[in-house]
């Protein structure tokens, strides 16, 4: 069902038979607009509709509401089949790559296509493949329409007169703007708005600290960046720094002078990106996952990063740690870690305590949230904090409140017709959060309770650490540990003497972590062992005993009950504490008796069973305190049309998102009879709130600028893809004239001997074929084994953009490619293509350095040139320059022959047919992945692909089978060992 404003959008768009560009606010249900356009089409089909550049989720949401939903035209379909689909009067999704290839090889019947729908129009440009497809299609079929859509207004204004240029390349004349503040839109949506409850959740102290520190660091980075005087200061605020588009702003300004920038400036730009993630994930991840993320950040960012050594970043790491665990001396006092001597002294104290009483240890445990791990050395104990996200608690309260309200309404109204729109108890509450990951976690949290979720994460974290530790030890034994491991150790590499103290603290902490980890590992091992050996009998008895114990404690220990905040936590608390008791015993015993090994195992065995027991009990007894309504979790980034399917009356927005808010508004407006209540959970004073508000402001200002642009726009009269002469009567003539117009732009040759270039299928991802076609050359798409472009029987070109060049030098791919080109062609050419809007240079003078080093691009290129003296290099300033160079190189050459070009380099001896279309039939990223694995070589990778279907299967193949496929034990062993090696990714 469409709202009045949506119907208006469609009727406005249909007014112009030539098409138009629609820009609307995000969340105003673009998919349903498309669906209803398709519905209109299917009622009176005039030809085929092709939908370009739709993302997967968009495809999905367009699929659903439509009876004859459009299907995909993919490269899997054989060409004749594709041709018949183009001729049928249906609607299809197609990629611009396939469409251009099919148009070029004239597989699309003339005038069979009624029109194109182009989604995500903001990503278009003159040179993009979609523009190419539009031009090709309009040249054969000037009557077809082009309707383009975008729901990202802010990316429509990124760049000079972007909207106008996009309209030009699609050759449409109308721009339709539909902001949220438009009269019709706001009128429809605000007639009967949903009830909104805005909940501000205060962040915990450490969270606030982390946020403050991250923003400080961000601010410092921005100040540094400003000081370089290279960027426009106006755009650089912390607020704009919260958005991804900030990177674009900065890069757009810096790209043309990128080579003149110092290393530090470049690092600043990437640091800002990292910091934005840190702020973002702070409110999205739980404490343990967040710490894990920071840990891996520290590994991957390593030493280059500027901010990581700043004061504020230290604070971030410290606070993040504090949310998970802290170090205490086992007598309960906080571990300050002054010096080694002191630590030893305290250990003595602790031993005393262990003998004569548990007063000190009582305080350690009294935190009530976690148990205590013993460290092997020093008197330092790891105390778990495991802070849960503040929103969790509020979410639970909200859900309980909803349930209570429903009960209240339902109880008195039981006899009467209570089919009021409030909904019955069974109705589902929708909780919307950003990603699938947090969905699953919240679900766990609701069913299992917060502590259990945190504990699981924590155990995973510790296990990861200990595994790494084991790995390191092994590695050290082999005494060939790669250099990187110093970093992985968690000890920031420190050279100076004053830092020796700090590193010793780190070691203590590290040891404590390891101890806790090994304990958990032992537990899980033994749990399994117990389960396997004495499944029924023994555990039964023990369990009974355990329960009795727990019960007794519940009766006796008063302070625990008083301390526990909610009753639901009470049960679990008790069980935990009983376990703690055991552990206290354990620590005592450990303290008293030197050779504790035997005792320890005895106790842990007992404990492991206890632990299992309390998990079960926790799971069963956790729930029933207060009934919760049924809950459905929804990840906003999965972009499903959940609202229309679920029809919820209560929605909890766990992570605020503008587009989703709009979706709720539209949903409410579409169901006027239904009352919809929305709870927003914001962290008070957080970047989350700021970001939400800023994104609304940003969208509004984007629309204002678009409205201004629209009023000033100059659109040529003939920008409608066809000449003004009534084109339906003499179609063929207009075709010729249109072609000749494009040819004049090239200005090279008459029509009879037009230039021909053979282009590899894969190259249609890039814009060069488009530009070559604009220059009036005939493009012949085929699949090439050698080279990307064949200009003549002699000239074969391998095209590399600058980033490709660096990458394929690093991977060694370039060497192989050049090698085969040199083998098969007289004039092999490596084309190095720079981008128009980036600087025309390899590197800045300051990067050249004083010595000849093997890692420099100069060295690599020199080496390539030395080894392939016949290789010709072509340096091109831009796409357009490349097209001119191609034309000039072809001037005195024969035209290439596509059937010959296709055969070049295709192995024939192992049964592969000469003409088979290779690239289309391969999972190219899987093949690339495979070829990068150790032990896999040029000679054996084909055999491996024949021997197993996919990489997942390869991952499980035993070494014997691998040896068979790879033609050697050694290679197979190398591969197997690499696949199974433990990842040294944590520290």
């Amino acid at each position, binding site marked *: 069902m469409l709202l009045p404003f949506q119907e208006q959008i469609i009727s406005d768009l249909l007014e112009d038979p030539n098409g138009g560009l629609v820009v609307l606010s995000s969340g105003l249900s673009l998919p349903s607009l498309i669906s209803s356009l398709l519905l209109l089409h299917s009622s009176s089909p005039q030809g085929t509709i092709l939908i370009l550049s739709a993302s997967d989720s968009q495809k999905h949401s367009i699929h659903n509401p439509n009876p004859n939903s459009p299907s995909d035209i993919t490269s899997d379909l054989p060409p004749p089949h594709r041709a018949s689909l183009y001729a049928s009067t249906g609607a299809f999704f197609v990629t611009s790559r396939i469409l251009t290839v099919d148009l070029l090889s004239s597989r699309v019947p003339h005038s069979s296509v009624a029109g194109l729908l182009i989604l995500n129009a903001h990503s278009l440009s003159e040179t993009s493949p979609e523009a190419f497809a539009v031009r090709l299609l309009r040249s054969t079929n000037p009557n077809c329409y082009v309707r383009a859509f975008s729901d990202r207004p802010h990316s429509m204004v990124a760049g000079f007169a972007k909207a106008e240029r996009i309209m030009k390349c699609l050759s449409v004349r109308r721009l339709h703007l539909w902001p949220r503040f438009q009269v019709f839109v706001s009128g429809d949506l605000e007639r009967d708005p949903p009830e909104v409850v805005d909940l501000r959740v205060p962040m915990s102290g450490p969270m606030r600290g982390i946020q403050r520190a991250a923003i400080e660091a961000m601010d410092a980075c921005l100040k540094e960046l400003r000081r370089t005087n290279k960027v426009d200061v106006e755009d650089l605020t912390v607020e704009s720094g919260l958005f991804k588009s900030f990177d674009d702003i900065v890069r757009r300004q810096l790209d043309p002078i990128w080579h003149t920038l110092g290393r530090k400036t470049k690092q600043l730009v990437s640091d800002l990106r990292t910091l934005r993630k840190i702020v973002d994930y702070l409110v999205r991840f739980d404490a343990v996952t967040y710490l894990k993320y920071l840990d891996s950040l520290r590994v991957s960012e390593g030493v280059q990063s500027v901010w990581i050594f700043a004061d504020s970043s230290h604070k971030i790491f410290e606070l993040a740690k504090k949310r998970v665990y802290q170090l205490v001396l086992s007598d309960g006092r906080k571990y300050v870690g002054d010096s080694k001597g002191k630590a030893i002294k305290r250990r003595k104290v602790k031993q005393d305590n262990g003998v004569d009483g548990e007063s000190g240890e009582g305080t350690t445990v009294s935190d009530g949230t976690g148990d205590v791990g013993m460290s092997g050395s020093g008197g330092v104990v790891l105390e778990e904090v495991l802070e849960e996200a503040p929103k969790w608690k509020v979410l639970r309260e909200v859900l309980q409140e909803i349930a209570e309200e429903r009960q209240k309404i339902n109880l008195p109204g039981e006899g009467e017709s209570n089919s009021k729109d409030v909904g019955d108890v069974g109705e589902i509450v929708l909780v919307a959060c950003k990603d699938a990951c947090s969905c699953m976690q919240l679900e766990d949290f609701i069913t299992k309770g917060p502590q259990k979720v945190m504990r699981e994460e924590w155990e995973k974290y510790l296990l990861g650490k200990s595994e790494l530790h084991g790995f390191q030890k092994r590695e050290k034994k082999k005494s060939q540990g790669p250099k990187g491991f110093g970093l992985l150790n968690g000890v920031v590499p420190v050279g100076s003497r004053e830092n020796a103290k700090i590193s010793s603290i780190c070691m203590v902490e590290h040891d404590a972590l390891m101890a806790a980890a090994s304990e958990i590992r032992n537990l899980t091992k033994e749990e399994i062992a117990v389960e396997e050996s004495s499944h029924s009998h023994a555990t039964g008895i023990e369990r009974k005993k355990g329960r009795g114990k727990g019960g007794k404690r519940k009766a006796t220990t008063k302070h625990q009950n008083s301390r526990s905040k909610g009753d639901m936590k009470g049960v679990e608390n008790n069980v935990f504490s009983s376990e703690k008791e055991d552990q206290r015993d354990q620590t005592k015993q450990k303290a008293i008796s030197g050779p504790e090994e035997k005792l320890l195992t005895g106790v842990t065995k007992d404990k492991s069973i206890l632990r299992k027991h309390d998990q079960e009990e926790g799971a069963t007894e956790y729930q029933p305190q207060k009934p919760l309504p049924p809950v459905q979790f929804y990840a906003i980034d999965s972009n499903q049309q959940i609202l229309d399917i679920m029809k919820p009356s209560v929605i909890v927005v766990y992570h605020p998102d503008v587009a989703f808010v709009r979706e709720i508004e539209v949903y409410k407006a579409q169901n006027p009879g239904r009352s919809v209540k929305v709870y927003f959970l914001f962290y008070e004073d957080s970047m989350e709130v700021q970001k939400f508000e800023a994104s609304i402001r940003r969208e509004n200002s984007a629309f204002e600028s678009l409205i201004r642009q629209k009023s000033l726009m100059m659109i040529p009269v003939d920008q409608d893809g066809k000449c003004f002469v009534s084109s339906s009567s003499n179609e063929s003539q207009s075709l010729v004239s249109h072609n000749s117009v494009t040819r004049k732009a090239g200005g090279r040759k008459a029509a009879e001997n037009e230039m021909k270039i053979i282009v590899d299928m894969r190259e249609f991802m890039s814009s060069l074929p488009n530009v070559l076609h604009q220059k009036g050359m005939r493009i012949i798409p085929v699949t090439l084994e050698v080279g990307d472009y064949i200009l003549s029987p002699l000239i074969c070109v391998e095209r590399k953009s600058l980033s490709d060049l660096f990458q394929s030098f690093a991977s060694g791919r370039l060497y192989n490619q050049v090698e085969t080109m040199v083998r098969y062609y007289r004039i092999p050419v490596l084309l190095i293509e720079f981008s128009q809007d980036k600087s025309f240079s390899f590197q800045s003078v300051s990067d050249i350095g004083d010595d000849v080093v093997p890692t420099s691009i100069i060295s*690599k290129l*020199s080496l390539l040139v030395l080894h392939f003296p016949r290789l010709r290099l072509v340096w091109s300033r831009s796409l357009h320059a490349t097209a001119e160079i191609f034309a000039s*190189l072809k001037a005195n050459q024969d035209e290439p022959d596509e059937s010959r070009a296709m055969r070049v380099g295709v192995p024939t001896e192992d049964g592969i047919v000469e003409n088979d279309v290779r690239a289309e039939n*391969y999972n190219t990223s899987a093949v690339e992945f495979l070829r990068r694995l150790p032990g896999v070589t040029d000679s054996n990778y084909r055999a491996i692909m024949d021997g197993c279907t996919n990489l997942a299967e390869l*991952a499980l193949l035993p070494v014997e089978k691998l040896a068979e496929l790879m033609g050697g034990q050694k290679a197979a062993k190398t591969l197997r060992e690499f696949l199974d090696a433990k990842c040294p990714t944590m520290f």
Partner: protein
Amino acid sequence: SSSSPYRQNRNAILVSHRQKGNPLLKHIRNVRWVFTDIVCDYLLGQSSCALYLSLRYHLLHPDYLYYRIRELQKNFKLCVVLCHVDVEDVVKPLLEVTRTALLHECTLLCAWSLEECGRYLETIKIYENKPSDIIQERMDTDYLSRMNHALTAIRHINKTDVVNLGSAFGSLSGVMDASMEELARCPGIGERKVKRLHDTFHEPFKRVV
């Protein structure tokens, strides 16, 4: 004629007297160089030579490069045209230079500063007999960079993702065998990456023909 001075100065770049006064010479620091009487501008090895061309000079004397190349008479295996890009508007002159070099079997190298020009000459001299190992596929690196190398073959996967995936699944085979849901549980791996990873590992190598 160029072989006798070459034998005397096997480890030096031989520079033609024509190049006297070229400021480029002061940037050749890592290799010895001497003036000699040779046809090319720089003799970099037994059968490799270089001609220096400033684009600004080319704009004034468009035929210069052609005559210089013709003088060389194909006596060299590798003939480098070292083009110093010192003008703003490069497209047209560079096109002419490219065409001349390509059709007369010369290899064109572009440099944007005299330092860079000098470095090319030094490097080609120093690497005269170096094997091509460093630009070929390498096998013997440490685990993490190998892992990076493999996984970053998949588009959009960056180094932080590699670390995250590794720590979530323990080993590469674990990552390769992971289900869609397991991948989605990994922090920092968004929906797009999950799909890409899953497709790469679970789609067959060969699509159904």
